[in-house]
């Protein structure tokens, strides 16, 4: 059903990563149309599309835009391309395949919000993607699509690509802003929210790469056309990054709400090697675990929340029957321990404590009472940290413990990992 696609429909067209190739397949028609509309008209289209942020929190995009105070300038747009969530690689894909589609979306948002500068903050490790974007931005300037007097109008907008220095926390919107300003990338106290006081103290909108990549379609085809995809509660499509124990890991764009986890898994060729599914983690490393019993849950914000997890940043990590959940939890906890920015005590010390315990547990040298300690620590972090990083550092491990208590218990005092020991030698 290729018609259903929005974001990836142009992937693979010849030369589409160049300006010329992109324009050949209708690129920048959205922007050309946008400049003939008023900002209010565009915001209305975005609102009627029902588009919600794809960066993780799922905040309605049109509503976020309308928080900007009237007539306060300059304003800034920050494009969040920091993509560091474990299991997420959709933004990289969208940049690699359709860099001009992102750029067109950025310019549409910039026009609508009347920002003077749009900053694309891209994850430091995405060097090739940064170079690609630099090239595309140069092409856009050359063609009068960015810079001064865009498309012959009075409107000016500079587009700047800025590379991060390799910190997960810099994907959090206020840490991103601090990092962009040249400060230590650490989250800011809210309020004030970026819409009121963001980059350089000015009103600022931060949007994810995928969120913005939807805009050319929404402006050109109308919000209603976008909302036809998916369901009323979860309109549109999303790119899901499927990884782990599947036959064909990769990015899959599917309509939300009408697709289930099972459908998505099938697209990726099912669990590899003909094995059974043990668990899956939607949303990226931060989100709670789901099991085979959740396969028929639709990819809908509310349905997944009801199942006890979240669509988060649009990932799906699949784990087959041989997976040791304690091991997976240990690796994820290590990630958060490594990435904790150190600003607040519960996350800084809590992730360290968690990580030490998980290592003991995985090695089979922890006692049973340490499981209670682990639960205690997580309870003291969740909802008490300065930003969601510390809160979510507990979600996977606690949900895995709840779903597989016996597996956690079996590790205690076992002297080694019982799951690994039970694996057939050839596996």
């Amino acid at each position, binding site marked *: 059903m290729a018609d259903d696609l929005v974001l990836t429909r142009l992937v693979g067209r010849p030369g589409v990563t160049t300006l010329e190739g992109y324009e050949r397949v209708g690129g920048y028609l959205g922007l050309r149309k946008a400049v003939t509309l008023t900002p209010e008209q565009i915001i209305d289209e975005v609102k009627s599309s029902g588009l919600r942020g794809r960066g993780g929190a799922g905040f309605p995009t049109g509503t976020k835009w309308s928080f900007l105070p009237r007539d306060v300038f300059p304003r800034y747009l920050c494009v969040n391309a920091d993509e560091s969530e474990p299991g997420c690689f959709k933004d990289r894909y969208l940049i690699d395949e359709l860099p001009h589609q992102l750029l067109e979306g950025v310019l549409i948002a910039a026009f609508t919000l009347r920002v003077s500068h749009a900053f694309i903050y891209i994850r430091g490790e995405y060097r090739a993607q940064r170079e690609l974007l630099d090239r595309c931005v140069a092409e856009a300037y050359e063609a009068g699509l960015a810079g001064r007097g865009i498309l012959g109008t009075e409107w000016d907008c500079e587009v700047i690509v800025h590379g991060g220095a390799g910190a997960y926390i810099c994907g959090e919107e206020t840490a991103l802003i601090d990092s962009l300003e040249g400060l230590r990338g650490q989250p800011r*106290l809210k309020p004030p929210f970026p819409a009121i006081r963001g980059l350089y103290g000015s009103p600022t909108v931060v949007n994810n790469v995928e969120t913005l990549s939807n805009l050319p379609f929404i402006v050109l085809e109308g919000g209603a056309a976008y909302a036809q995809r998916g369901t009323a509660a979860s309109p549109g499509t999303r790119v899901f990054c499927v990884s782990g124990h599947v036959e064909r890991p990769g990015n899959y764009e599917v309509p939300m709400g009408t697709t289930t986890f099972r459908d998505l898994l099938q697209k990726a060729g099912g669990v590899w090697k003909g094995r059974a599914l043990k668990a899956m983690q939607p949303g990226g490393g931060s989100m709670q675990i789901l099991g085979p019993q959740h396969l028929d849950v639709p990819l809908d914000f509310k349905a997944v929340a009801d199942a006890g997890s979240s669509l988060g940043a649009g990932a799906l990590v699949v784990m087959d029957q041989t997976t040791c959940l304690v091991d997976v939890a240990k690796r994820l906890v290590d990630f958060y321990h490594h990435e904790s920015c150190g600003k607040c005590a*519960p996350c800084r*010390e809590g992730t360290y404590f968690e990580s030490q315990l998980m290592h003991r547990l995985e090695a089979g040298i922890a006692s049973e009472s340490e499981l209670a300690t682990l639960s205690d620590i997580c309870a003291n972090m969740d909802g*008490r940290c*300065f930003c969601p990083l510390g809160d979510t550092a507990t979600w996977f491990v606690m949900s895995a413990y709840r779903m597989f208590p016996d597996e956690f218990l079996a590790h205690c005092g076992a002297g080694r990992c019982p799951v690994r020991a039970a694996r057939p030698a050839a596996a």
Partner: protein
Amino acid sequence: MTDVARSPELITVIVDGRPVQVPVGTLVWDACEKAGVFVPVYCAHKKLDPVAVCRMCLVEIGTLPKLQPACATVASDGMEVRTRTEKVREFREGNLEFLLLNHPLDCPVCDRGGECDLQDFALRYGPGRTRRAITTKVHFNKAVRLSDKIVLDQERCILCWRCTRYYDEVTGEKELVLQERGVHTVVAPFEGRPLQSMFQGNLPEVCPVGALTHAQYRFRARPWDLRRTPSVCPGCSYGCNLNIDTRETEVVRFASSDKPEVDDGWLCDRGRYGSGDLNRADRVRSPEVRLGGPGRSMAYSEAIEAAATALASVISEHGRERVAVLGTPLMTNEEAFVLQWLAREVIGTPHVDHQLLPWTDLSPAEFSLGIEEIEACDAILVVGEQAEATAPVLTLRLYKAERKSGRRVSRVPGDIEAGEAARRIAGASRVGVISHERDRGLAAQVAAIAVASGASVGRLTITVGVNGRGCKDLGLLPNYRPGYVATAEVGLHGRGILEGCQSGEIRALLAVGPNPAVEAGADLDRACAAVQLLIAITPVRDAFWRHAGVVLPGRTIAEKAGTVTSSEGRVQTVRIAVHPNIAVPSEVGLLAGLGACLGAARPAPTAPAAVLEEIRTAVPSYAATAGGLRAAWGKLR
């Protein structure tokens, strides 16, 4: 009706069931304090903006599912705050466990042991058991020398950000930064450079734990061995309040004490680390008479009598006007008042002063600006570098005026042309002009130009020595009696007195030391050697002591009771922090005794408190200064 109009300013917050009224914009933390409910904090600090990083203050608010930081949440009308719930108790316990996880627990050898918020809260709210045996501690550097004044123990640091914010918000110097990430985060000097600030000594005080330590005090005392005496910093005339912490007869440290109108809680390093000067080894311990022979130690009464007899014979031989009296700006108001009484009423000489420079053309405008009022000026002009060099804490007030109130602060050199200086404050309607007394001439000219252009102008003049202002107010001047009543006859000023000693015009000098303002003059030693009779009252072996015919031991400021007046006219109390180890009469007593021996018609009171009563009667502007208020400036006569 008017009450209703005023009431929207106040809102009601319910803290643990108790309603309290607070102004709009109050933080929950402050509302709790107002309700008498203590909330433990680490990162929050009354003088710093909230950051909410330590999480120690989390409380329950209304129906919000998550605990909220009291230190960073603005109270709203009807808000219900709960600090004593099981959820809060459990969290505090857990958070203290986190904070102690990588803490070295070396309280037994820590300077802060006994006055540490980590110790205190761990005891009050902590888990009372440890689970850290199952983790390995992360170790850090235990003695990072940040400068010759400050040593940082990175291991004890709980990363509250107070020190870095102090540098960002209070001094603006940004000398400390955070480095590394997560559990490896450390406080470190910016680019490894040693700290240069004039205000480093405040760091160990903003630090809630024993991470930032004074090099001077490190491992020297435990807090419970110290005796604390509230006093005034003797470093300059700005009037910062402080506590003198002593152990036996030794002054161990100066600790700041928040007087919002003056110091705002801060001290400069010169003042703070000047505490060592009070333990000088070269003390004068007993009275000594050396008149025409080798020095002999004597009882006080005998030495006073010998001094009076010698003085009387100079007077009868050469006349009263051949005697001069030189006080010091380190004297208390009570001492200064009695000294000028001794000079004028008993000896009968017009030659009396406390400093070298002449002090003429006095106008009440000179002292019209209070420190607290600086922040209310639209524009502030600092004339000359000497004002801030003399009273460094002034710089912090100026920075606050700029940063918090958006005031315009300009600085001009002391040799600039007045018209050009005045251009810096042009257009402002409320102007503050600040200068050292050395630059008062230029400051007066600039102020006059601003007044002529319609601005309302206040002036603050930084005087010499801790009590230079009091000495002037109380007539230790050749041209003014107490309360700036002009004298009929103008005597010699400080420099004239020293010259007179050398030329023979002055035959006898009664001097009180030490006198930093006079010691700066090169001729002091020669003048003291030349004068026929020198009577010295001094606590240390200074030039006066070297050449005196009669020496009476004086007291240091830490050994005195009385009042001193700061540059802005604030009359503040100094108390006896160290009791001299021998039975030394107070200097007021010595001077009164000398007056009695010289046949004073009316005896002077010997107790400082009684002298202060006399001052309040004699000098109207001192009438209502009790409790550390500013002397209300009366009309000059």
